[in-house]
């Protein structure tokens, strides 16, 4: 099975860019602006979008490499990408350690002696840093990149299988997901517990994205565009929305029958609850149905900021994590008024767009000028990275 299209689908960049913005907003604690993010209106959140689209683009880029240059070369490139992400993760960790060290030396409120215990790991940095390099110690909001690294490590054999027997690959992935639920598989974390994003669970969405990229979406398109599916998707989104409203207006909760609540809760993010997958799928169906691939607006300036962020997702993601630290820092040190929160949120997104645009320009300049040549297997995509 061949990658279906040679032109990059701008919808992927658009929605990945939007997901990156939402992740940034969600990562700033106590941010008034994050009421706009989708996690407040249903079960799934921006992480699902990010993982799915990352799987989709990974298959798109490396699928072709595997067909043209073989398994070894394509795998080597996937591993190189995993290494880049690892380096980015360590870079973020350094920033995090600096922030936490600052707080520990400047904040000593007797009301929060217990909470300051979170800084105890600074007392034995040898252990902590080693555990962090092993991806076992993951500070708050730094769980996505380690997940991404593992997903890429698992990707070469899955891609090999996807190119030969796509259905079998999808079944394999779904079986791992099912076995994870059955045997409660997860990886250990430090100092205790397990990974916040269970890779055995989240790989399903990544592989499903890859499967869609390699022709699965085409095969499904008759289903996706059928009025029945669209109706079901809308119905499910409305259901999820009404449930989400009971989280904010507890009085509405009495309208939720007890058995529904018992069956539903807890909605497990770590293990990618089925309710979350369904919510994401419903969103995807609606999106595909109402935003056509050749929608002219995709090329207009309105969506350009999100698209350019989506095209440089690793850089934008890392920047977003850093900016959310910085934003929280502004709240604690300068002001936490709602006006500040709005300014910080918009400024953060503006910085993400500016940096993504700069990277885009830089890549083009490198390509035109005598800079290092881009890899031969990736012609034709401006910023066509994973």
């Amino acid at each position: 099975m061949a990658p279906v299209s040679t032109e990059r689908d701008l919808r992927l960049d658009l929605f990945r860019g939007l997901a990156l913005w939402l992740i940034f907003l969600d990562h700033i604690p106590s941010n008034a602006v994050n009421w706009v993010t989708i996690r407040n209106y249903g079960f799934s959140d921006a992480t699902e979008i990010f993982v799915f689209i990352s799987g989709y683009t990974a298959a798109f880029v490396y699928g072709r490499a595997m067909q043209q240059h073989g398994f070894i070369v394509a795998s080597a490139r996937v591993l190189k990408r995993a290494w880049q992400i690892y380096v980015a993760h360590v870079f973020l960790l350094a920033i995090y350690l600096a922030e936490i060290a600052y707080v520990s030396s400047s904040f000593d409120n007797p009301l929060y002696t217990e909470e300051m215990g979170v800084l105890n790991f600074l007392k034995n940095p040898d252990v902590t840093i080693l555990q962090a390099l092993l991806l076992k110690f993951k500070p708050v909001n730094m769980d996505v990149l380690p997940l991404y690294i593992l997903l890429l490590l698992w990707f070469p054999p899955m891609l090999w299988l996807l190119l030969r027997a796509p259905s079998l690959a999808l079944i394999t992935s779904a079986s791992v997901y099912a076995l994870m639920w059955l045997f409660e598989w997860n990886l250990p974390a430090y100092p205790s517990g397990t990974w916040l994003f269970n890779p055995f669970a989240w790989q399903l969405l990544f592989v499903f994205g890859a499967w869609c990229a390699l022709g699965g979406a085409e095969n499904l398109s008759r289903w996706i565009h059928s009025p029945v599916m669209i109706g079901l998707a809308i119905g499910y989104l409305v259901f999820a929305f009404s449930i989400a409203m009971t989280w904010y207006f507890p009085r509405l909760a009495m309208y939720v029958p007890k058995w529904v609540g018992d069956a539903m809760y807890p909605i497990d993010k770590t293990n990618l609850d089925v309710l979350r997958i369904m919510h994401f799928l419903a969103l995807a169906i609606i999106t595909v149905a109402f935003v056509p691939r050749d929608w002219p607006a995709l090329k207009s300036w309105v969506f350009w900021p999100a698209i350019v962020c989506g095209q440089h997702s690793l850089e934008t993601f890392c920047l977003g994590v850093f900016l959310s630290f910085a934003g929280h820092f502004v709240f604690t040190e300068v002001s936490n008024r709602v006006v500040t929160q709005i300014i910080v949120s918009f400024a953060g997104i503006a910085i993400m767009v500016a940096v993504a645009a700069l990277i885009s320009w830089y890549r083009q300049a490198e390509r035109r000028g005598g800079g290092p040549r881009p890899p031969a297997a990736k012609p034709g995509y401006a910023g066509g990275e994973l």
Partner: protein
Amino acid sequence: MRKRLLLLLALLMLGAGPAWAEHPAECRVAENLIEPNFRLPHVTRAVDAKHLNILVVGAGSSQLPGSSGAGNAYPARLQHALADRLRGVDVKVTTDVKSGRTAAEMVKALPDALAAATPALLVWQTGTVDAMLGVDPDLFSQSLDKGIKIARSAGADVVLINAQYSPRTESMIALGTYVEDMRWVALQQEVPLFDRFSIMKLWGELGTFDLYSATKKLDIAEQVHDCIGRLMADMVVSAAKPEEPPTNGSR
């Protein structure tokens, strides 16, 4: 978002809520958050018998540092406020508080502590340490279930207290899951939850207390604990009231 709505709700309900005239004004803003949704039958009986023993089990956020810390922390303030509200009842609050303990560790110590204190009510503060250590949320919920069962079989009602709202460490401690889990376990087990997290967050947002302050002084910490003790006393009294059954809320 949720907190914004709570804030709005709080402001709306300020007029409608019951009048607790004796409170310092700064405590008042959070009163709608302490409506108990479940009853405390053992406490009701203990109040009738004019003898109420309460055991507070908790970690570091149930105490204050310094020589006068024990007297100013919320367990002592709770005893004081309850003695005020329940005239003629002999109220005794004992504590089993050590910083840095997870829910599972507290459960281990619980049978002995219950045997020693023979309380009608267990006030159980937990969640922060589990969040800091990243304890598996499932195990955390199981510990809560287990602790509640142990307390019930020892003849005590339970009130859960969740984590403090701590804006400075918000980007370092992921409390969310643990706060949600406690809410969920409380509903399932039909135990009132003293939502310290939402209350303190509301105080922070309304500017009642400056929770961002890098002060080393104890005054704000003492006021916060005093208010928590008073609000908890209100919650216990209204959950133990025999005549009017409290509204049975669920998620």
